[in-house]
């Protein structure tokens, strides 16, 4: 049996009396794009928080390429190859666009403070490489985030550009798996269409494995190799988009009992 890149086994977590994730099994293979769907409060973002180490599961195991990551601090998990974006965008607003991306290079670089101060050859080389990488990643979005934008503060960006910048920042951590939390939220139809294309490009051009939370079913249909549906913290359906979208348990969780989908 081949080893999955990311593997959650029987993971549960409760906040007080409330069981938010309940015995979840989830695996993502190398090079896959997997969508995580479910109604509000189903526990999707909590799953991201468990994978990135923000929360520690009460029980169960999480493995990244065979190595257990449960109980490790988030920055260590990130350095091992898990990067994410946030549902409510969390940029470093007072730093420049380029610097936002370069922050994610911290775990990969090693220059000590004194080396940066006396500007050793290694420190300068690292700095140069990080800068070049950041500018290359920002050009992934066409002309929107390049040129004069490099030095503008992140707070000056539009909403859609902030989302793009957050994706660029996550890419700069050079992750093996990229977790996108509702990348199309708050986007207009054209931008949503672009996000769909972008998510595929992340895999096809950059080689990332992607786990994406999404509410927009057009995006889910457009990008997913596989769809996993959650409700009340448990997996209720898994498989192709057609299979999951028409699955009675999924329809019930979104529409209520007794609803059917025709066509």
């Amino acid at each position, binding site marked *: 049996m081949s080893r999955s890149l990311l593997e959650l086994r029987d993971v549960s977590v409760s906040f007080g009396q409330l069981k938010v994730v309940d015995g979840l099994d989830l695996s993502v293979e190398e090079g896959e794009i997997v969508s995580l769907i479910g109604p509000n409060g189903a526990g999707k973002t909590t799953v991201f928080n468990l994978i990135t180490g923000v929360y520690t599961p009460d029980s169960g195991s999480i493995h990244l390429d065979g190595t257990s990551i449960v109980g490790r601090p988030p*920055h260590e998990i990130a350095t091992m190859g898990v990067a994410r974006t946030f549902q409510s965008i*969390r940029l*470093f*607003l007072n730093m420049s666009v380029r610097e936002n991306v370069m922050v994610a290079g911290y775990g990969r670089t090693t220059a000590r*403070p004194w080396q*940066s101060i006396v500007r050793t050859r290694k420190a300068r080389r690292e*700095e140069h490489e990080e800068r070049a990488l950041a500018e290359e990643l920002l050009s992934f979005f066409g002309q929107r985030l390049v040129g*004069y934008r490099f030095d503008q503060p992140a707070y000056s960006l539009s909403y859609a550009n902030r989302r793009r910048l957050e994706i660029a920042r996550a890419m700069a951590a050079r992750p093996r798996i990229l977790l996108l939390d509702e990348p199309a939220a708050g986007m207009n139809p054209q931008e949503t269409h672009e996000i769909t294309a972008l998510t595929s490009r992340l895999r096809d051009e950059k080689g990332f494995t992607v786990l994406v939370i999404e509410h927009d079913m057009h995006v889910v249909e457009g990008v997913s190799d596989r769809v996993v549906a959650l409700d009340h913290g448990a997996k209720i359906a898994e498989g192709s988009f057609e299979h999951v979208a028409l699955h009675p348990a999924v329809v019930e969780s979104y529409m209520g009992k007794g609803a059917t989908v025709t066509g």
Partner: protein
Amino acid sequence: MSIGVDQWVETADSRRLGPSGWWGRGLHRWKSLPPWGRLAIVVALAALVPLFASDFIVRVGVNALLLALLAVGLNVSVGWAGLLDLGFIAFYGFGAYAFALLSSDQIGVHLPTLVAVPLVVVATGLLGVLLGLPSRRLSGDYLAIVTLFFSQIFLELALNFDRLGVDLTGGPNGIAGVTPFHLFGRSLSSPTSYFYLFLLVLTVVVTALFFLERSRTGRAWRAVHDDALAAEIMTVPVNRVKLMAFAGGAAIAGLAGSLFASFQLGVYPLNFQVQFLIVIYAALILGGSGSLPGAVLGGVVVAVLLDLLRDPGQASAAFYGVIVITLIARVRPWRRLGAIVGATVLLGFIVHLVATTLWPSAFEGEVESTGRLASVLDSWIVVPTEPATAGNWAYCALIACLLALPLLRGWRRDALVVPTLYLAAFVWETRLVGEPSITRQLLLGALLVVMMLARPQGLIGTPRVERV
């Protein structure tokens, strides 16, 4: 040829109306210089000061450079990493006391300067790591309270260590007889030599921090300031980075402490009270928290102001000067300004004439300002025989007037400005000039209030945006 949207945005700054004339051209040329060029010009100008200035001015300069160094150190933990560290003064004090112990008769140790100073800097940095530990769990107000406690603990220890068997700190008497710095075969004794030493140290520290700000460490600090969770998720070990900021700021404070101890030839608990912590914060905030040149400028401005206000004559000149400049800058058109000034002058002479004619015995006091200014003021301001009581009442009336001013509009406000100005001069002459220690704090406070209303980002800081 049409211009693209992006170029339009790109050139936005140059199209914005900046200051014009020689000031605008100078500012533009200054900004187009490379950073090292700006540094070289500032250092060269500062280095000229002792050549023309008296010993007193050079001492003021040393104080200014010391405060600038402290503000730059505080900027590391507060301005960049966003850790509200109220224990900073403890690091400064620890550095000063540690240097004093290593180069005085207190415990009979006299280490060479070049051994003692690095030892002190490293020890203070380690203390920074230790006292920074609460920042792993706490942030914002909570961290501030805990670190304020460290400041107080340090002061209590310094005051009472003489009663604990081994007399390390000299208790309330402090440690006198600290040996001055001994560098390159000669002892530093004159204020001028210390001025150049402080200038050299400040230049080196600022240069080092300039490179650090642009390195992965500096970026990590600023990222933690903006959003600690996002920084952690983006591979930054937040707790370690916070401790590094604490240690960096503390090490600079320790360096400043040892310089101070040798310059003053002694250390005393009074030097490390919380009041001085507030002065360091005032310097950083006034200059622009988060900005390296801002911290230096703030330190110099605040130190020079505080030293100027020590002398009644200079304090009066500064006080009336600021009032006149504010009037000229804020009151338009000229007609209105003339009316207000004329009415104020007239009011003064009338009050003086009426008071001295009707109750000559009650107004036999003298203005407390000195010099040429005093002879002019003497026939304008009435000074009661018992200035303290009248001054106190006038002080209350002045505050009432100041509070009422923003509530009024139009000619009513202008009319109220006249007695307010006279009251301000009256309070100044009867009450404030005589108590410089209180007055300078008061004026510094007023300056900060005005600054925070007019330019919350500080003199040369950039405005910050908080996540909502």
